[in-house]
């Protein structure tokens, strides 16, 4: 579904991604793990065109993503939940969600998606007309994910959804991802520092270190490999 081949992305002299390849199959969750500065966020930003790589190819359902403009990417069915402050705090919860489904002109479909999201994330329903800056960290993350889902994506790119959240909330978010994969065969690329919870829901995983893929394989194998866990994953 998504194919990243030999991608090199540089910031000035820094090679943030140094020849990264990864293939994502439809209906799976792929965890992208690694320490701070390993290139995880850069990988997501390169996939959806926020930054352009110096070398390499990225294709999505056999279409070339490197020649797609950022605001077109979402129309192709790829939604991105950026790291940290992904919600627009000045807008209300409802407005944030509506922004997720901008390019869908059908009004009744929009209403239906809104209803679905409020069912999936009940805390958001209580605050639908409040500005998003009144939400807690966990609620903001829910909102960012719900907003991405409003576009009915086939591929969801998630950047550090567990950042700064209580373990219980992280668990809920991971459970939601698993459910979306199982029930709607959503494909997810999940960037995480919290390797343990990411591996618990993933099908495959890659570990980045200094812009290179150092390990890749089925998530279960990575979780079982004690040496690897100590070396790169910190648990």
């Amino acid at each position, binding site marked *: 579904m998504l194919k990243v081949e030999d991608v090199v992305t540089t910031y000035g002299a820094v090679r943030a991604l140094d020849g990264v390849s990864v293939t994502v199959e439809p209906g799976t969750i792929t965890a992208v793990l690694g320490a701070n500065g390993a290139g995880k966020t850069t990988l997501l930003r390169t996939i*959806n065109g*926020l930054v352009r790589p110096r070398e390499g190819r990225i294709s999505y359902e056999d279409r070339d993503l490197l020649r797609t403009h*950022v*605001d*077109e*990417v*979402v*129309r192709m069915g790829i939604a*991105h939940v*950026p790291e940290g402050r*992904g*919600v*627009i*705090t*000045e*807008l209300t919860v409802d*407005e944030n969600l*509506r*922004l*997720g489904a*901008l*390019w869908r002109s059908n009004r009744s479909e929009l209403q239906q998606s809104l209803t679905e999201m409020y069912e999936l994330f009940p805390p958001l329903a209580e605050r639908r007309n409040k500005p998003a*800056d009144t939400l807690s960290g966990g609620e903001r993350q829910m909102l960012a994910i719900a*907003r991405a889902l409003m*576009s009915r994506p086939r591929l969801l790119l998630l950047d550090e959804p567990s950042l700064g959240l209580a373990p219980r909330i992280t668990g809920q978010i991971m459970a939601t991802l698993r459910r979306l994969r199982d029930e709607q065969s959503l494909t997810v690329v999940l960037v995480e520092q919290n390797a343990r919870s990411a591996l618990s829901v993933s099908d495959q995983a890659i570990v980045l270190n200094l812009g290179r893929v150092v390990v890749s394989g089925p998530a279960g194998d990575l979780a079982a490999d004690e040496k690897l866990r100590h070396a790169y994953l910190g648990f």
Partner: protein
Amino acid sequence: MFRFLNLTLNGVTNGMIYAAVALALVMIWRATRIVNFAQGGMLMFTTFIAWDLAQVHHTSYWLALVVAVAAGIVIGGLAERLLVRPVENGPPLNAVIVTLGLLIFLQALAGMIWGNSQAHSYPPAFRFIGYKVGDHTLRFSPNDLFIVISVLAVVIALYLLFQRTSLGLQMRASAFNPEVARLLGVRVGRLLTLGWALAAGLGAMVGVLVAGTSSGYVTPVGPFDALLVYGFTAAVIGGLESPGGAVVGGVVLGLILSYADSYISNFIQTMYAFVVLIAVLMIRPNGLFSRTSERRV
């Protein structure tokens, strides 16, 4: 008492004009984080276009007004696309200098086309002699009523556009967080251009309205610059961030200037605006209505 009523009516009318200029500045500030110092020059230029049509070619007032607003929209859009966009990622001062450059360019161009030496007059839309109550003549004319209603109508229309339509939601999203908006499929660049175009169109309308309020208004340098000072002060009273604040700020400033003009002295009207501006910046630098005073890091 009657004098107070008159001053109040006069203050509200002028205040609506300042409010509209302030709103144009706030729209551009919100969209691109730039104080558009060319706003006065842009609306001066479009008012000259209207003047040329109405006074030289004798078209109707309304046609001239429509052409001026259309010209404003085009000038605003072009200014964003051709002048502001290239310096978008530079230091903020660059964009400010660019708008100052545009101001000087427009003033020079207007001088070349229409002449610097003569101040032209513009016809009001309606009678400018005040309504009569008994023996008294109010300082509030049908033309003043037209100004108040026009500005209110545009303010309401803009409010509905921003708050109730998908286009308005996209414009707000682009202003608050361009990168996230882009990720969601908003075509941010086009909406910023549209924001500038709408603001300049609003400015153009104000230019034509204000030109009819006193004789000799239409001249490349002078009255329109003062108008920018008033508009900017009104915007700062409102916090530069809030469209509602800009409107309230405009009316407040209109009232203050009207009272000060009559009760203190009418020689130094522009200076009162500066006094208000400095006072607001000292006491409430985020304005009376700002929501960003407690911006989190």
